[in-house]
């Protein structure tokens, strides 16, 4: 196992919903290692998105600490978190979130223009198998293609960590497999630490480690000595 990338200790996240308090995370301890591909598995409301958002610098914990390679994310302000996301984190979301007014290549260029050591947009799109559709606008691409553009955009900065929140949630299973295969390839070829959120048990088979969450706590971590190639998954 590689170096520790993330080190979370005693993470609590509490939302004030008027008179009631909702605890999204209740004391989570977790380490993520360089180059590994993990799947966070849990039902909706289990806290997996909250955890990933905190790891990715989109949200801050109510208490506890998160260290990214020794740097404390829980104490960082908005500007520092922005810089962190800008240089180290790649995100992939369920709803792609591409900029509709930019072509596939330009959506990737949006990131490469501000990154420190990016690959070229063409190279990133090649990695996800979209070399032929680089000049299409999002409205001209299928859902799976849009999601692969989102992945290309996320990896083009050569992020230290790739966080994917239900990347196949809006896709049918055939398309979903293509997207997961692209993620696995990036993890393999670039060595990017990758965390994939899903509630789909079948997808857990591609992970080296599966982290089970329920009701805001980690209920178990299962190591998988022989992850299955994404191509072989069905659901």
């Amino acid at each position, binding site marked *: 196992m590689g170096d520790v990338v993330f080190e979370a200790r005693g993470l609590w996240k509490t939302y004030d919903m008027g008179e009631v308090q909702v605890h999204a995370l209740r004391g989570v301890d977790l380490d993520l290692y360089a180059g590994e591909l993990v799947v966070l598995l849990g039902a909706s409301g289990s806290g997996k998105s909250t955890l990933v958002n905190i790891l990715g610098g989109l*949200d801050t914990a109510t208490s506890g600490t998160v260290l990214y390679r020794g740097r404390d994310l829980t104490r960082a302000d908005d500007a520092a978190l*922005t*810089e962190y996301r800008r240089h180290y984190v790649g995100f992939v979301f369920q709803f792609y979130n*591409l*900029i*509709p*007014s930019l072509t596939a290549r330009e959506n990737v260029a949006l990131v490469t223009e501000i990154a420190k050591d990016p690959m070229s947009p063409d190279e990133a799109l090649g990695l996800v198998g979209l070399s032929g559709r680089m000049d299409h*606008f999002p*409205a001209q691409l299928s859902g799976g293609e849009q999601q692969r553009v989102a992945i290309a955009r996320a990896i083009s900065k050569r992020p230290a960590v790739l966080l994917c929140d239900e990347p196949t949630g809006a896709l049918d299973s055939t398309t979903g497999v293509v997207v997961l295969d692209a993620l696995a390839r990036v993890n393999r070829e670039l060595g990017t630490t990758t965390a994939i959120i899903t509630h789909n048990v079948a997808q857990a088979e591609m992970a080296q480690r599966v982290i089970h969450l329920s009701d805001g706590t980690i209920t178990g971590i299962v190591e998988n000595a022989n992850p299955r190639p994404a191509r072989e998954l069905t659901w």
Partner: protein
Amino acid sequence: MLSLRALDRKLLRDLRGMIGQALAIMFVIIAGVTTYVSMISIYDTLDGTLQRYYREYRFADGFASVRRAPEQVADRLREIPGVAELETRVVAGANLEVAGFGEPVMGLIVSLPEDRQPALNQLFIREGRLVQAGRENEVVVNEPFADAHGIRPGDELQAIISGRRRTLTVVGIALSPGYLMQIQPGTMFPDPQRFGVLWLGRTALAAAWDMEGAFNEVAFTLAPGATIDDVVTHVDLVLGAYGGTGAYGRADHPSHAMITEEFKQLQSMAAFLPVIFLAVAAFLLNIVVTRLISLQREQVAVLKAFGYTNRDVGWHYIKLVLVIATAGAIGGTLLGMWAGRAMGNLYLEFYRFPYLHYTLRPQVVITAVSLTTGAAVIGVLRAVRRAVRLPPAEAMRPAPPPRFRATFVERLGLHRFLDQPTRIILRNLERQPLRSALTVVGIAASCGILIAGLFFSDVIDEIVRVQFGLAQRDDVRVTFIEPTSMSALAELRALPGVQHAEPFRFVPARLRNGHRSYDTGIEGLPEDAYLRQIIDRELQPLAPPQDGIMLAMQLGRILDVGAGDEVVVEIMEGRRRTVSVPVAGMTEQYIGVGAYMEMDALNRLAGEGQAMSGALLLVDERYEDAMNAALRDRPRVASIVSQERAVSSYMDTAAESMLVFTAILSLFAGVIAFGVVYNSMRIALSERDRELASMRVLGFRRGEVAYILLGETGLLVLLAIPVGFLIGAGLAVWSIAAFESEMFSFPVVLARRTFGTAAIVVLVAAAISALLVRRQVHRLDMIAVLKTRE
């Protein structure tokens, strides 16, 4: 307990959710309705007050001046068909001395029947009383003049009438409908410090002015059905033998003509300013509600699925708009009434009505409210129709993703120079060309309104520059009571401090071409005149013509003659000759309608020997008081006018009111610019919150994200400013045309300062909107946005 239907409760919450935008639109509506209500009501008020004042104080329908006519002639005038009532009077010029004021003060002294009001042109007594019989030194003073010098009943004045000094005791302060604007003949601006109207008993004035048993002015009213032109012709026939200088109707009465011009301008401003505001408000409502409805398409679908009819849903949104429009209309009406009254009081200072009869016709309020709500509802109907047209099932699905393409700029091959955020800006703008264009027009309108409102001071500056820098260079203009031998020039040159003196001749005349005629005066200038210059359209000096007559362009238009044509000149003094004279050329004259000849040629035309009507002087400032003192007691001197002083005192007052006007207009124009910019940014934000949040997730800094949002509207603002310059210049040309009349022909001049002010107001309004919206960008909730479907 008030119970609201669920749908109405939704309406209130929707309103609360868009409170910033709703307020911005409301402000624009308020600005529009305020200008409309205040301007129309002030026009109605002034016009109503004027008519009432004229009626109550019996302002005459026609007037005539004559050199000297025996009182019996009045009976002949009364017999003219169409004359209802006729009154004679004596009018005299005088030099006045006011204690503590060293400069020359000219007085116009009008006779008053003893112990009673005149039959026509009665006085409104503000303070004190009319003159009493047998008290020859009692005088009533016009209020502006009294105010300018702090004169009160009981005070004394020195007057030199026909060279005789008299001490007059002020017994009353009064106003007259004939002297609403107290402008001294031959000058441009009212100057109550240096020119005053006084009323003296008829007996006393006639004795002083050699008019016993005679008169030199008549005023008359018309019988029902009579026309002024017919009566004027007859009056001129009668008075011609006594040195009549031409009768004229109310329309040509200097005070009335001046005030009518001012009202006309007010009326045309009231016609276009509010329309612009209301149009912008309608446009804003349109885009805001279109956006709101497109955000709520699922809600619309749900409502329809539950069985609400298209009408219910449509009415729901119309109500939303009506709430905003009605609130704006009510606020605007109240503010407009308040502003109307406040402006009325300002005008009261200026025009000197005895009272102000504030008029707000109910139709004005009804029009304002229905224009506003109508514009708002029409603006919204399209969006509502689109919302209710969708079948519920379709409306519940998300809208198809917007289609984009490379922009024009990029297709030109310039894309290499554009980073991705800039491409986003350009493509968003190009995808909605109509909205972008309307936004540009909206912002440009505010810029244009400002220019149209502000440029008038540029015009005045230019007139002053041309009139007093090029055309009239004298320090003092001395006019004699009647044409005088040229030897008087030597006397003037010998006065203390006089550095240079040039004679001039002024001959009252009626110019005619066929049925067209115009009463004016011909000014005769020496061939080498320096102090008074005739200028052409390019502002180059022209020599006064030896042969023929030079006409102001306005006069050429009135008479329909040009260079080379002939005009008939009827001299209205002396031997009263009628001669046909060729038009030698045209001259540029912004104010007044003059005619010019070389002085000797004019004397020959009048059939008189070498004579001068007065002289223009250049005076060493240090000796001015001594010179004034020396001139004041000379019996032949009718008036001493120091143009420069009059202009500068007027400019000071004008500058003050201009500052107030500029501030108000800037505020209103700023409100429009703010309304458009703020709404367009808010809408861009609501349409792109997802995009912007995505970019924040990708690691874009707040400023970089704000660049996309603010850059889009910022680009439109930058585009709008030059467009606004064009609109402003267009409005300026249009309003100058609306203002043009017989008396005025103004140059269209737009100073760089005016454009600068307009641009700055727009930029400041845009910057304020940007700051407000920037705060929203900072609050973008990345997680919430990303978790929801588009």
